[in-house]
């Protein structure tokens, strides 16, 4: 498959008063054309930092890139100037956020915001841009678009604002859409609408999507590939089916077992992951999940496991994959 984005060995740190916080510690993944890649993990695992690194929206300082490259259509984004990045952000990669108000101007009519974007990106005449803006609101299923373009963002509900933000992101016909927890603040019925909308836009516009979420249900619903992050690292990645059915890493296994499912028996115990993720002020020397892992072995404490490939698309970072681990009980994966 044609690759659109390749992240290679990316490491991002933040300089803080106490010292360096290693938010992202060497991650690599790829996004193919028309593919949806979900990045899953808990708060603080580095998933949003990764997204903001691609867009280069991190405040620098305190953030800085320690290592790695981000190749978009073969070009390294990290070596681009701010001006070139602006062009890329405007025309090739778009981003939507959990809170739509971060990208909407509260003092400007919704229509005008879209119209200005259209004029800027496509050089349309005002009249044509307005017609196109109505079409775009229609595209994202905002009812009565002729009336709605004359309204201000605060007159829209949460779900409708999210739609407007998606419309704004679509102005430039991006090749890649980064969606950072786009449905977390929404109610389930509205979440279903937005996810549906994203899927249909993807098909129509041939877009790739990076979906950042903590909701495994959303992942199963929308993504082709899944990247599981923990404490700044990727612990497992693979096709969605591989992640859900041939789960390799103990963290992914526990994460899946800790969410109640509608299809689950109520008497089944909910597995809980005791403790909290490590503080990345002092990243652990060995496996970051050691403290919370039931299957931890002596080797895990001080030695960082490397990736083991389970298939061409599926890899995990765990010492249980080591041939010698098989001789011990409790190693069955």
């Amino acid at each position, binding site marked *: 498959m044609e690759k659109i984005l390749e992240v290679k060995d990316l490491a991002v740190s933040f300089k803080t008063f106490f010292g360096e916080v290693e938010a992202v510690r060497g991650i690599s993944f790829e996004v193919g054309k028309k593919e949806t890649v979900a990045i899953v993990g808990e708060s603080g695992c580095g998933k949003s930092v990764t997204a903001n690194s691609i867009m280069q929206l991190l405040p620098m300082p305190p953030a800085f890139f320690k290592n790695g490259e981000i190749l978009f259509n073969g070009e390294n984004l990290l070596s681009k100037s701010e001006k070139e990045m602006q062009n890329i952000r405007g025309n090739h990669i778009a981003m939507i956020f959990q809170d739509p108000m971060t990208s909407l101007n509260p003092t400007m009519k919704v229509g005008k915001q879209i119209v200005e974007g259209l004029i800027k990106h496509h050089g349309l005449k005002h009249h044509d841009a307005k017609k196109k803006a109505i079409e775009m609101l229609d595209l994202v299923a905002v009812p009565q678009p002729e009336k709605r373009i004359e309204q201000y963002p605060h007159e829209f509900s949460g779900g409708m604002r999210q739609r407007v933000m998606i419309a704004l992101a679509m102005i430039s016909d991006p090749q890649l859409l980064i969606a950072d927890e786009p449905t977390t603040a929404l109610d389930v019925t509205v979440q279903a609408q937005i996810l549906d909308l994203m899927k249909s836009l993807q098909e129509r516009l041939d877009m790739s999507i990076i979906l950042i979420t903590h909701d495994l249900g959303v992942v199963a619903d929308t993504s082709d590939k899944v990247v599981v992050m923990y404490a700044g690292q990727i612990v497992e990645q693979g096709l969605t089916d591989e992640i859900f059915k041939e789960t390799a890493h103990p963290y992914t296994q526990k994460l899946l077992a800790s969410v109640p499912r509608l299809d689950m028996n109520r008497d089944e115990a909910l597995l809980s992951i005791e403790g909290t993720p490590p503080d990345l002020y002092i990243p652990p020397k060995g496996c970051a999940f050691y403290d919370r892992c039931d299957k931890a072995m002596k*080797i895990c404490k001080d030695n960082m496991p490397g990736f083991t490939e389970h298939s061409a698309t599926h890899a995990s970072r765990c010492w249980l994959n080591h041939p*010698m681990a098989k001789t011990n009980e409790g190693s069955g994966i």
Partner: protein
Amino acid sequence: MKADLDFRPEMFEVADKTDLNVDKIRRPSIKFWPDVWRRLKMNKLAMLGLTLIIAMIVMAFIGVKLSGYTYFEQNLKLRNTHPNMEFWFGTDELGRDMFTRVWYGARYSLAIGVIAAFIDFVIGITYGGIAGISSRRVDAIMMRVAEVIYSIPYLLIVILLSVVLTQEGGGSSMFVLILAMSLTGWVPMAILVRGQVLQLKESEYSLASESLGATKSWILKKHIFPNTLGPILVNVTLTIPRAIFAEATLGFLGLGLQAPMSSLGTLANDGLAGLAVGNAYQIIIPAIFISLIMFSFNVLGDGLRDALDPRLRK
């Protein structure tokens, strides 16, 4: 997999994690105020301000005794002596030692600032606190009253008061000055406190306390008041220089303290005459001290605000 590791079967035994306490907090515990102090200490400018304030307060007490002259002792033979080894800051047009007079003036300026700020603090907290916990109607009435009071220029009040309460020989007493400034000065504090109370009254921990059966006064005492202390402290720190400056302005306009008492403002006023005849030091020196006081309190206040800001924590 790493190649440089020498794998042995025992490395793959189940790890012994009996000592592991997943809920252990590794970072040391820091109490709120020590933490604020720690962050304040990191702010060099604020610390400079604090040092200057302490130095000036100390000098306001002992500085008046150092030169061996008193603030009222006139020596007409030594009029307008420029600063020298004998008179460190020179003498004024009546031959009084400026060094002693500056510290004497600083003492009054600081006293006026601190007392005015304290009165603002007491009235402001009481008034704002009552408005904040009262019903919406009472609150609205109290705030309108406060706004009306605040709209009266304090200069007008000072002039009126000094006409009514004036002493012989012109000038105002310290009492009149403080009274005039406090009459309107408490309003910003009251508005601040009211806003804080309104906000904290709705906070989840106040609600939690209510659900536990707490009374209004309990919530005010245990939850609202301790959490408003920070912003109030910043406000007090910034009120002091405002009061000092207001007094200095009045003094400069001739409405300040009555001679032979002096504040930095009246000293500057006295020195104004010297400016024309080549004795600029008579105005420059008090002006420098006014600026220093203003500077010190303002940077300290700003520093405190930053140190107290929860968003800048960690």
